[in-house]
């Protein structure tokens, strides 16, 4: 097992290098220009734009910029944002709590909703409950989040005036009132994202359960005279969750990446919102940092998922 992990880690190094190179090349060759927003401003003459380009180091050829950037990143320095002139890591740390508070919580909510509902749906297969759950799940992952988000805003913010749709990142939860405030401002995005996550996971849980329920060991458990509840939860569900757990692990990096569309709609200053804005404004250091961190997380959580699989399922052995 230890050797397996080490080997996987060694393979990850060239993978990440290739990813970083391709990503940087795409960013450098893309026609997007960090100075585009200044281009039609007659107060900013071409020579001023040229000064800025030089100050940002954009006068150097991109392979040179890539090597410099890579060396800095290996030392843990993601550089300075073109737009805000602050260190990229500071920007990311500033935004991570918001992303976790919304996207992370939504992910957890999604999991906690999906497991019991998926199980129930499988146990009561072809009943009204099952059909209702399946229908909801299909709606959940086929209706885009920007649509559900807007519907919620129009109902709860515009019509009923119950909930705010401008997220306040300065709200600190210190007492009951601020907790209510936090819930009020985050419930809509959490609902939108949680519904989506739950919908996807429910289908998996249900499918796995359906696969396991007719199996011999389940019949054995029943034959032993165990209560149906114990059979389903302790025997069938436990085994069904093995692939689901790896699936959940694989989904963790997307939490870090933030929810691009949903964060935009609800004004949540998270990492997804930062990414989109930085792409739009040609803020290469920020985009590069988010993409490379995301790549590292994907590689890492793939490994975690594989290792977890081995731990949870004794039949699987890595050599």
């Amino acid at each position, binding site marked *: 097992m230890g050797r397996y992990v080490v080997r996987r880690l060694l393979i990850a190094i060239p993978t990440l290098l290739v990813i970083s190179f391709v990503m940087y090349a795409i960013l450098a060759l893309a026609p997007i220009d960090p100075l*585009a927003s200044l281009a039609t*401003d*007659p107060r900013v003459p071409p020579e001023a734009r040229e*000064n800025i380009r030089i100050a940002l180091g954009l006068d150097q050829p991109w392979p040179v910029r890539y090597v410099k950037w890579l060396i800095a990143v290996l030392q843990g320095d993601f550089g300075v944002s073109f737009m805000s002139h602050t260190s990229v890591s500071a920007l990311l740390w500033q*935004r991570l709590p918001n992303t976790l508070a919304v996207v992370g919580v939504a992910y957890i909510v999604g999991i906690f909703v999906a497991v019991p509902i998926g199980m129930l749906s499988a146990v009561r297969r072809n009943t009204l409950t099952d059909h209702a759950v399946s229908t909801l799940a299909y709606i959940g992952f086929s209706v885009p989040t920007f649509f559900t988000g807007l519907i919620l805003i129009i109902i709860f913010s*515009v019509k009923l005036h119950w909930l705010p*749709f*401008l997220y306040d990142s*300065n709200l600190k939860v210190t007492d009951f009132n601020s907790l209510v405030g936090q819930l009020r401002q985050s419930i809509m995005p959490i609902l939108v994202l949680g519904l989506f996550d739950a919908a996807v996971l429910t289908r998996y849980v249900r499918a796995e359960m359906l696969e396991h329920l007719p199996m011999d060991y389940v019949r054995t458990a029943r034959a032993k005279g165990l209560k149906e509840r114990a059979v389903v939860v302790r025997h069938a569900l436990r085994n069904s969750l093995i692939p689901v757990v790896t699936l959940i692990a694989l989904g963790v990096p997307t939490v870090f990446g933030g929810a691009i569309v949903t964060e935009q709609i609800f004004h949540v200053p998270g990492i997804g919102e930062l990414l989109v804005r930085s792409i739009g404004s040609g803020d290469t250091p920020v985009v590069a940092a988010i993409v490379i961190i995301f790549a590292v997380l994907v590689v890492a959580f793939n490994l975690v998922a594989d290792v977890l699989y081995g731990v949870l399922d004794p039949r699987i052995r890595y050599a």
Partner: protein
Amino acid sequence: MTRARYVLRGAALAITAVMAIACTGTPSASPGTTGATIARGAGGDLKILYWQAPTILNGHQAGGTKDQDASRMVLEPLAAFDNDAAAVPRLAAEIPTVANGGVSADLKTVTWKLKQGVKYSDGTPFSADDVIFTYTYMCDAKSAAISFGTCENVKSVTKKDANTIVVTYDLAQPFYLQWGTGTSGEILSLNAWKDCLAEKAKTCAADQKPIGTGPYKVREFKQGDVILFDMNENYREANKPYFKSVTWKGGGDATAAARASLQTGDVDYAWNLQVEATVLRGMATSSTSADLKSVYSNSLERLVLNSTNPSASLGEQRSEPGTKHPYLSDKAVRRALAMATDRTTVAEQLYGAGLTGKASCNVWNGGAAESKNTAALDVCKFDLNAANAELDKAGWVKGADGVRAKGGVRLEMLYQTSVNPLRQKTQDIMKANWEKIGFKVTLKSTDAGVFFTNTSPDGYLKFYADVEEFANSAGAPDLAGFMDDWTCKLAVGKANNWNLDNAERYCNPDFDKIIDQIRAEADPAKAAALVIQANDFLVADVAVIPIVNRTSATSGVAKSLKGVVLSGWDTETWDVANWYK
């Protein structure tokens, strides 16, 4: 940018100043000063929403309007510009003029008297040294300030005494308020910025938490998200500012901002509500929470006709000055296009007939220099029959497919612009009409971040198309600065790395002569007449087809928020000290 631009700005300013004085006397009505109930910090929290979130709080390093507007809460120039383009003192005690002796007779030396006893929010005193420092900072190319353009022709900025500075220009400067004013003129404190000169300007802590003399100071700044301001207890004007704190939220999009202002009333002030006019009108008229406030300066949406040959077969010579467009070099074709341009429909259907823009056939709009002559020109009247007749007369014959041709040249056109729903709809309207008179129009739209570059072949400056559409706005009181964008020497091309202003590559010595005359003209009234002459020249020659003059600010202002006076010549927050509830 050339020397010409600032000379022209001078003429512009002089004209508008004369106009303002002639019409209204002193245009300094600030409602906030009148109310007896106004006291410093009496108001609670002012909520401002910018759907583009500020990322830096130093106007000299701004990445866009959002940053300039936000930094003006804290930092102030020597003088601001109101909506009549008249200068209003900020850190200056008075506006220098030739009459009060502040400006030398040769228009080369400007003496600014500074307000005395002004303190920064941290208690340190403001002095002439800060102004000198600001000059050193922004006029050093290595600082890469976006305000660098206002340093052009500035010979020196020196201290006469603790409260007087002298700005010297290299040549007679009719726009003697060029340096240190408006959006580009924020004065930086020597104390706070002393470690931010040259290369260090790009990583400057003071840009994140500026110390200024303005009505507010920064408590917390989360880049790209939110700024919390507190009132500046040291603000020099008694009883101001009214609000104890300001929450400046950023992010989202224009529609969401309109919703937050006009529908839910979550914010007191929402910036740039550029939503489709029909939607915006509905939101605004039914709103119980806020009013829509807009202001015009000169932000002209125009059709730019390529005077050079964009054909890919020319290789390196593509769209280079010196080449000739196969059919747009024929004035009759240009005139026909202009006559088939339905700006009224565009203005009414897309810009809500005055809500976010109004139809215009002038290159320059506003003030004494706005031409009244163009309305009568045939190229300013939408008339498809006349357009067809023009092309018939010039020998362009319709083929079997309805496309006109002459001598093997077919009227096939590539018409490009940036991705923007309003522009795509404008393209559709133009295409429908132009195809009726025998053009074959292919539409193209490119993401704004790519379109507004000098590097992309899809960009507006490389201009590998026949016609393109965009807007260019005058930020400072720069009414004639537009005019030199059509001079020969500003023609965009490979030689200048596509980094100039004349995207049309228009070149006409007769036009350049008018511009030279404006440069030499010291009398504001005569300069205005020349600007009109230049405007009429461009419109009649169809160097450009003006479509719509867009509002330069379109804001949602809560009904409870008073004293909001917007200016098209300065940031939207130029007068924020006078806002109250």
